[in-house]
């Protein structure tokens, strides 16, 4: 009934649609698996269960909390309501210091303790994670 050309075109569009749907499905699926949630210390205190996936915690480095010895750095992240202890083996960014904003990425041991894999501080002296700004304003 239809010419060969029309059939070919229909087949082409059909294949295109399938590959588009497949790739979107693939993208969304791996997005689900590879997402890192950003939480504040208070949100962590309120977690119903401590899951075993990677998270980021943002807040301020508590004053006089940084302890360094030859192989690790420990410090406390606070949002002025709750605190999280962080232990970290690795290199820190330049603007990492007490009383400044920080983001730590890693795995939760329990509701008070994070083993960090990466420490991020922004490249600007005025940077403060948005959560902390909110917490400061609320105070």
């Amino acid at each position, binding site marked *: 009934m239809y010419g060969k050309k029309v059939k070919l075109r229909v087949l082409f569009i059909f294949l295109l649609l399938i590959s588009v749907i497949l790739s979107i499905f693939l993208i969304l699926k791996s*997005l689900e698996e590879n997402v890192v949630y950003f939480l504040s210390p208070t949100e962590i205190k309120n977690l119903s269960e401590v899951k075993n996936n990677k998270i980021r915690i943002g807040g301020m480095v508590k004053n006089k909390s940084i302890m*360094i010895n030859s192989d690790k750095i420990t410090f406390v992240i606070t949002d002025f309501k709750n605190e999280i202890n962080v232990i970290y083996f*690795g290199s820190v960014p330049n*603007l990492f210091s*007490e009383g400044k904003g920080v983001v730590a990425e890693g795995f939760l041991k329990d509701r008070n303790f994070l083993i960090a894999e990466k420490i991020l501080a*922004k490249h600007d*002296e005025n940077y403060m994670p948005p959560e902390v700004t909110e917490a400061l304003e609320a105070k």
Partner: protein
Amino acid sequence: MFFSQLGYYSLIFGLIFSFLLIFVSYKDLKIINHSINSKIISFVFFQLFFVFLSFICLIISFINSDFSNVTVYNNSHTTKPLFYKISGSWGNHEGSLLLCLLVLTLFIFIFLITSKKEPKKFRIITLLFQQIIIIGFFLFLLITSNPFSYLFPIPKEGLGLNPILQDPILAIHPPILYLGYIGSSIIFSSSLAAITQNYVNNKWAKNLKSWTVISWFFLTIGIMLGSIWAYYELGWGGFWFWDPVENISLMPWLCLIALIHSVIVLEKRSQLASWTLILCISSFTLSMSGTFLVRSGILNSVHTFANDPKRGIFILIFLFILILISIFIFFIFYKPITKDQKNFLYSRETSILINNWFMMYFLSVILIGTVYPIFLEVIADEKISVGPPFYNKLLIPFLIPFLILMAIGPNIKWIQDDIKLFNLRLIFLFLISVLISYFVLIIIGLNGLFTTFLIGVALYLLVTTISDFFIKKKINLSQKISHFGFSLLILSIILNGIFSSEISTNIKVGEKYKFKHGIIYFEEVKNFKKQNYISVVTTFRIKEDNKKEIFLKPELRIFNQPENITSEADIKINFFSDKFLVVNLVKGNEYYNIKYQTKPFMIWIWLSTIILASGGLINFFQRKLNEK
């Protein structure tokens, strides 16, 4: 004072010329002749002149440290070296937009004087669309981000430029990147003009190709410069982090690559016209969306300057208008070429189409990974980030078929090729490459089917390109160089990823640290007073097993204005491997935090990117020579 005023009024004059141009061009459209009114070209020149004058005024204000200008006050300081006073003029939001505007006006001027062979109406309508973009930028500058705002009382000292931006590479990174981004504006305007004039044909494609390759060239180099800077300045010791800011530059880049390929089909075979137009429109739209995401402060990065919600809304509206105009024109005016041509499955056209599909896939992965967190935050108020594993998982496996097709594609003939003649050389080379990769991996002591294939196919592209180069009589030089560069790039990235190693520890002066393959000695710390910072130079002696001792002297720079510390990594660059040492100081502590990295083939990544980009440049000049 005087220069700020002059700069401000030049901007207004420039804007007035925009309206004059629209008026004159509209009148000239009705006159039927071959050459456009000479008034138009001189008006475009005057506009360029005024924008240039304004830009020079801003630079002079920066050199004079004229703190009555808010932009200068916010981003400069009297003790800053002259070089960074000048580069500081585009190292901020207002100045960088002025630079964008300068490039916009420069490009339309170049377009007009180099397109004399094109139809008159097409040239004028391109100019009109470009003027719409230019007016948008003028209004954006004048309304929301005036670089010449006045400050009273005049402060004695400025706030200074963010120290990590005080770097030679970062001084040239923005101008080069803008040449790439803004180059796509000409592609955008000329494609809309071509649609309205029913001029979407191979002649148009020829002109378009030059603009595409040159924009792509600048974008590639611009991205590479940013990447080199991040490597040594941010202290992370890598070249790509899948940071949203990097991603938004990669999206127009991929789109331009797709365009470079599809436009060849339009030029040679008058096919894929609608698809090419869509790519033209999207490459500029993606560039503009990038500007929106970065400048509105939605994505936090070095590129985020003082946030002002008004700016974000302005760009969003502007972007919206541009997209609406292009969709409207595309659907109302566009008449597809109706030539009855036979299409065959096994042809060069198909291989290019497949390349475009891959590009679109890569693009959508990056787009979704970048935009999804933003949507989730707006909709569900959840903050997430999407890290490297996401991109690695979705992009790397697809590189294997992509690289194979990239090797075979250029060997397929136009229109129709015969599968039976499918040549033995290609199959032979494929087997050889995979075998080499297999044995090399065994010698190194690594295995894994996936890695073997990945390195194998990258090698396959490399050897096929080289063998094509020597066997074929008629070669496309620029394509061979770019494909060669790309295969080298992928190879260096894979090897770099596999063999990189890093050690970090905290160490006091005079101490030593033993690691698996050697010892690091912390020899000494010295302080030096520099023009606008204190330099803390540390000396480390590193002895690795079976290797010569090396000394590395990473530096810390403590800036006062603005208060900041930057670390300058010390890198021993070697042909095969970089040794990278960076040191950080935690305030009030005698421990220095160090990170020592071995980064193989780092220099190859930069070199192969340059080779990749130079293919584009060669293509551009070949075209120019052929025209003469």
